[in-house]
Structure formats: C-alpha cells, structure tokens
C-alpha cells in the first residue's frame, strides 16, 4: 500500500515539476506535447496522474506527521486548476471561459473545505490568525496584505481600463439554418427530398445501407476497408464514384480543407475562420447530405448573415463544378471521414 502511495507521489511530483518548468520555460514548452487526435485521452490521463499525485503526497505528508494545512490544500488545488487551464490546454481557452471554470472550481473548493464544521474551522483558522495578528509573523503578513491588496486591485482595474487593442470577439454560427430549396445550374433541389444520385448499390438504386458498409473504418487512421478500395481497377458503382469525387476534392478542395479533410490545407493558415474540419464529429457527421450540397454549391457568399458570408473564402462551387461533380465530392467526403450523412427522419 505504501509502495503504491510512494509511486503515486512520485508520478504526481514529476508531473507537477514538468508542468511548472514548461510553464516557466525552464525546459522547452513542447517537451510533452498535446497531439491532436490523442488530445482528450492525453488530458484525462494527465489529470489522473495529478490527482493520484496530490492524493498520495497529501497522504504521505500526513503519515509523516507534517500534514499540509487544509487552507493551503484548497488554495494550491485552485491555483493548479488555473495554471492547467491557462498554460496546458490547447488551443487556448478565452479568458471569459477560464474565469467561468475558475469560479466553478472555487465553489467546489469551498464546498470541499466546508463539508463539515471541523474542516471549515481548519480552513478559516489561518485567515482569522492573520486578521487578529497575535504574533509578529502574523502581524507582518497582515501589514503586507493590507498594503498589497489595494495596489493589486487598483492595478488590475487600471490594466483592464487601459485602452487595449485586443481583437474583438465575434461569434459566428457555424451551421446556419438551410433554405428549403436551392437552385443550382438552373435546376431546383428541395433539400428535404433530394438524394445523392451516386449513393447507389450494385443495382444502381439509392441505398445508404450499401454505402455505409463501404466507408472507411472509424478507428485510428480511418483506413479503407480492405475489400473496398476505390482505386481497385475493377471498382464500379459507388466506389468508382468515390474515387472520382476524391479526384475532384484533391484538385479543388484540399487547398483549404487539407489532405486529411481536417481543415489544415496549404492555404488554411491565412484564413479566419479556419476551414471546416470534416473529421470533427461536429461538422458533416451532424448534417444531411443535401445540406452539404447546398453549402458546397453556394459557398461563403451564399451564407445567411449570422454565418458571416463576408469573411468566408469558400467558393460558390457552382462556379467551378457541375452538379454531378458536387454530388461526387460530397460522396467522397463522407467516405473518407467514415461518417454517415444524417437522414431527415
């Protein structure tokens, strides 16, 4: 038991040391990198390390007869939450959101500290000691706090009032409500009833079950099923259309949406908002195929105002592609990401 605790303390201690020295720049900040794709797992794992470490350290300190005061446990935990959110999580979280998390964790710390009368007293005691200033040490701290507090609060309000040129925050609707129908190359498509003419089975009938069985696998790498290779010279029907769609994608779309359809194309770095990441479960996986058809055909310029049409560089693809080509690209995007289009029912 003790061995496990020592191990936990070691893991937690090393983790804290690593985090602090990365934050302070003692070692390069990318020493332990968050890697996209593994990121959620990685963060859960890291937090588990920290929790194990904290538990073990506080237990061992207690067992060694020098328990860490409740007061400092609470404060340190709260500081840790702030540091982790501010310096570790990537992409960075805006201050307003961090403030929210910070408040929630402050409340949590208070609940933890005041879960029973005795703990609450222990937590309160250091504060009261300083207020009462019975010893020289406490008096010094009180004096220091009395002087520093107005300076810190005044300074903070000065900094926040000083005119700064931070980028204005503009919130954009990513998936605006689609129109009922859209007219592309002279033909009207009703979004509720239109179907992708290339999502067909071997008899040439619309068949989502059939195509769903042939998309890439939803595991690391998202590789094609070994018996469903669009590049097989014998590939026909659905798989052949997937290949044709892929050719169009890689002649037109990858410049922004990237070779892996993750929105990291060659030109993506220059644009704001960055191009959509189709491998994210929040984009095409959430949408109907006809919605994608409308978005692709009409592009950024065809968006309603809440989606910021002025800032989107997404071309109205009807200017570059035929209707057939657009449907094939949509087909390819679902194949390559391994998602099913949502249906209307």
């Amino acid at each position, binding site marked *: 038991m003790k061995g496990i605790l020592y191990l936990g303390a070691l893991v937690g201690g090393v983790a804290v040391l690593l985090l602090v020295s990365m934050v302070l720049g003692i070692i390069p900040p990318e020493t332990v990198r968050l890697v996209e794709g593994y990121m959620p797992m990685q963060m859960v794992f890291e937090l588990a390390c920290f929790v194990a470490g904290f538990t073990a350290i506080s237990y061992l300190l207690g067992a060694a007869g020098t328990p860490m005061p409740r007061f400092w446990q609470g404060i340190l935990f709260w500081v840790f939450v702030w540091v982790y959110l501010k310096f570790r999580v990537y992409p960075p979280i805006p201050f307003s959101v961090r403030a929210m998390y910070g408040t929630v964790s402050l409340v949590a710390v208070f609940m933890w500290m005041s879960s029973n009368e005795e703990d609450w007293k222990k937590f309160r005691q250091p504060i009261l000691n300083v207020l009462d200033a019975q010893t020289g040490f406490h008096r010094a701290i009180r004096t220091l706090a009395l002087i520093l507090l107005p300076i810190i609060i005044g300074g903070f309000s000065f900094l926040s009032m000083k*005119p700064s040129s931070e980028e204005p925050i503009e919130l954009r609707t990513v998936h605006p409500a689609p129109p009922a129908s859209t007219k592309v190359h002279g033909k009207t498509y009703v979004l509720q009833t239109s179907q992708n003419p290339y999502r067909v089975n071997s008899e040439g009938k619309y068949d989502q079950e059939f195509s769903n069985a042939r998309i890439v696998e939803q595991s690391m*790498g998202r590789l094609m099923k070994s018996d469903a290779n669009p590049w097989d010279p014998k590939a026909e029907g659905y798989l052949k259309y997937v290949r044709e769609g892929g050719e169009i994608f*890689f002649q037109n779309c990858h410049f922004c949406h990237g070779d892996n359809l993750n929105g990291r194309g060659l030109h993506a770095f220059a644009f704001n908002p960055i191009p959509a990441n189709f491998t994210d479960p929040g984009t095409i996986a959430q949408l109907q195929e006809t919605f994608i058809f409308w978005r692709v055909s009409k592009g950024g310029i065809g968006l309603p105002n809440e989606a910021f049409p002025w800032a989107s560089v997404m071309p109205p693809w009807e200017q570059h592609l035929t209707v057939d080509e657009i449907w094939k690209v949509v087909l390819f995007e679902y194949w390559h990401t391994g998602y099913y289009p949502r249906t209307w029912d």
Partner: protein
Amino acid sequence: MRNGLMTSKIGSILMGAIGMTMVAGSAGMWSFAQEGGGLPEGFKKSELVNLPSAEMIEAGKRVYFTKCVWCHGVEGAGDGPAADRLWPRPRNFNQGTFKIRHTASGELPLFDATKPVAGQNDLFETVTHGLPGSAMPPWEGILSEEQRLQVLSFVTSQLVKDRKFDDKASETQTVLDLAGLKATPANKESIDKGAQLVVDKKCVECHGTDGRGDGNAFNLKDDWGFSIQPADWHKCWNFRGSRRDPYNVKNIFRTFSTGLNGTPMPSFADSTSVEERWHIANFVNSLCERDSEGNPLPIDPLTDKPKINFVIPSFSVEGDISDDPENDMWAKQGRRYVAMGGQITHKPRNFVNRIDDLWVKSLYNDKDVVFLIQWDDRTKSVAETKLPWEPTEVNLDQYGVKEQDPKTGEESSIAGHQNKYTVYNDAVAFQFPVKWQEIPPPFKPRYLWGDQKFAADIMKWEADGSIRAFTGTGWDQDFEARDDFNEKITIMKSEWKNGRWTLMVKRPLKGEYEEDTQFDMGKYIPIVFFAWDGHNGDAGRKMAVSAFYYTFLQPPIPREVYIYPLVIGVGVILLEGWVLTRRANKRRGKVL
C-alpha cells in the same frame, strides 16, 4: 500503353539524373564517393537495414491507397489527381530521391520499419512532421506510429523502383552523426564567421545577398526539370526539413551537411569542416524572423506558421512622419505578421501564392495615417510593356490571366509552368469598408472587394510606381476610379532590395467625399490585404489575399484611466478598515 509511357518517362528522368550526377561530380561534391577513402567530417559508416516484412508492406498498401494516392499517384510517380495544381509537385518515389536525410549526398534516406526513432529514421520523420511550405501535412495524430511505418514499408519496397533499400552491391549508408557532434554556440563570433562563410562558399549566389532566396532564382531546376526556388532564410517555418522545430539550428546543419537530393542544393560535407558548418547554420538561423526582443516568433502548432494577431495598431506621433523605416519612430513600434493565402474563391484561382506573408506597421498624426508594408518577393517584377487592361478592370480572362487546369500532365502542370509566365507588375492593395461606422459589427463588406450593399475603399500600389484609389462593389465588378482621392494619397517610399519590398503609403485620416473612409481613434476598422507577384503571372483576381484584420488607431490614454483605479484602491483600504474593526469588536465581545 501506360506502362510504355512510364518506362520512357523514367528513362528520360534517369538520363537527367545521370547528367546531374556528372555535373555535381565534376564540381567535387561527390568526390568522397569516388575516392572511397576517408569519410567526410562528422559522418560515420552504417549498415543497410533489412527490408520490412511482407505483412507490413501489405498493411501499408491500405494506408497508401486511403491517404497518399491522391497526390503521389497509383505508381508513386508523384502524378496523383492533385499533382498538376501543386508546386512543389508531389514527390515521385520511383527514383528513390528524397530531400531530407541524415545520409550523404546521393544516398538513400534512413528508414527502418522497426525503429521509429527521431534522428535515425528520416522518412518516418518526414511523414510524422510533414514538409512545411508544401502540401505534405504532418501525419502525426492522424496515422498511428505503426501505420506510418507500414505505409513507408510499402513506399520504399514497392514504389521506389529504380533502387533497392537493401541492395548491398550498389547502396551505401554514410550517416551524419548529429547526436555525436557538439554544436558550436550561436554567439556573435560564430554568426559573424557564418556571415563571411556564406559568401565564401557561394551560398549567396542562389540564396541572395540577404538570404531571401532571390539569388539565381530563375534558372534552377530539380531532377525532373521542374522549376525550384532557393529557400528564404528569413522564413524558417517554411524550411521543408524544419521538423516542426523551425528555430532549431540542427535542422539547418543537417541540410547543409547532406544536401537535398534531387535539387541544386549540394552537400557541403566535403568542402567545409564541421565547425564551419555550425557557423553557417548559426548564421542562417539568426536570420529567421524574430520579435523585437530577438526571441523566436511563437509558432502556431495547428498551422506551423507564426501565430497571428488580427489587430494592426497604429500609433500616434507628433508632427511629420518619417519616410525612413529605420527612423526611431518606426523602429520602436512592433510589426504585425499578416498571413497571405491564395485567392481560391473565384476564377482565376491562384493555387500557388508566392507571397505568403506581409509585415505591417502603422503610424498616424493629426492629418494622415501611414502604412509601412514589407514583404519578401524573390523577383522585382515590372511589366515591360503597357498592360493591355485598364487599372479599373478586374475580369482579365480575355487577356490570358487564367487558372491552372486540373488535368494537364506533367509538362503543362503548374510546376512545369512556373517562371514561364508573362511578367506583370508586383502590387499590393488594401481595402476598408467605406461606411464602417454605419455597419453594425460584426457585419462587413465582403472580403473580396466589397459588395453592392457596402462598398470597399481600395488603395492599390503597383511596381510601376503608381498608386490609385478605387471603390469596389463586388468580386466581379470593375473598380470605380476615384481621381479626387488619387491626388491626396502618396507613396512615401517604395523600394525592392535583395528580395524584399518596402512600401510606405500615406492617406488622409479624413476624406472630403462620400466614398472616403473616415478614420476614428480607438475603433476597429476592418482591413483586408491583397498582394500580386508579377513573375507568378498574378493580375486581377489571381493574387494572394489575407483574412480580415483590424486597423486600430491607438488613442492617447484618457484621464479617467488614472483616476478610477485610485478611487477603487481607496475603497479597498476603507473596506479593510471596516473588516478589521468588525473583527476586533467581535473578539472583544461587542457586536456592532
């Protein structure tokens, strides 16, 4: 039929490669290989690695045909569907020519399917980190480590056709022992020596006097006959071999020691000592863009380019604004990085934008606002004859400004076409919404030259020395000239020097007419930048474009900012007094 074509193509490429070898050999670059004796300094002999297992190769085929075939093609000849619109063109694996290696010039790169170790597995690192500045993305986080090794097993054994990775008869492995070499510290002495060495070793002939890749930029071709440009040392994040660690001098040392196979960049292993190579690497690394304190720019891990701040502050100065960028009033202000992508929304799309960033500063006084824009452009381009279109025209199809067709074959691909364009003017423009005060944020006129509802105020400078003001009302609407405003805007400086343009333009803060943008202090005024490289055939909509940025005229600090915090501080002191009194009373048993 296809096979026949392939063979003849490979044949001609081989001929080219042999030609290159002879040229390189005569220049003494490969001499160590012929002499067979001593190894170049810093290198050690190594053994060839066994071929990967059949299972790895078979598994890799599945990865290849899901992810790679789209650019690199069915036979790995770098001729996938995407290839004709890409520059650099995707790698042709067939010849086994790979750029980024730890091995001596001309040798195959390091690859071991059982050892994914940094520094010992060149191809694995290339797939993991991608090749910045090209369309090859980092595959880390997308493909697992094993999948990356699998696909490389397939590529090295099946798609590299002219050479074999385990062919002991004709292949050797001479490996740069980077881990065993001690780097020379990048102090001033070393950097100064490096600065002299890049002249002595003729690096500047291609890379240019200031290292902006503007030297012998136009005659360079790779082994396949595609035009290739020397690296711009000021943009280390675009170095193909930067391994997503662009300010690490080791990457430069490696490239300089081993050369880039298939390109005119030779290995300097034989002609320089290890120490000299460190000096050069330190010097080249010192040129990469840094912030005002000399620290490396923060790199955005999502894009592997410098992090972007979308606000371009303009600072107030008293009196006249200097036209010298080195003047103290300019030098002390921070500059902003403006990322530029190709215009790929409307025809003619620009798939290859050779200007990928601008650096912008701004100052204002009581009358004018001045923008200082600097950007790297390997070529100064001024049209030799008068351009056939009017300056206001934007639809230039009829004049031959066209986008690259998707399927053209190697010969007329975009890579085969580079540097053969009619030369137009280099140019830069930026636009503001005319009536930005009346447009409730976040509304804006469209980024591409405004729209019918909200017009854009466009200022365009061209390398022929002209500056013009236009009103834009849509991406396909010809500009309207604003002659009255032309007289009020001035070019304070425009100069191309050693691969970099410096442009300083002045315009009034307040115009007199309806269509003039009025600048107010402390407001976010949307701005979009456009850039044309005349040698890239850029004109009209074939250009580079930025996202929306904001100009922000920094106002002097108002008095309230000093007063309120003082009041708050005093308030806190009173509060403290109250808490202490209350506590003291409580202890004495009195409750107030």
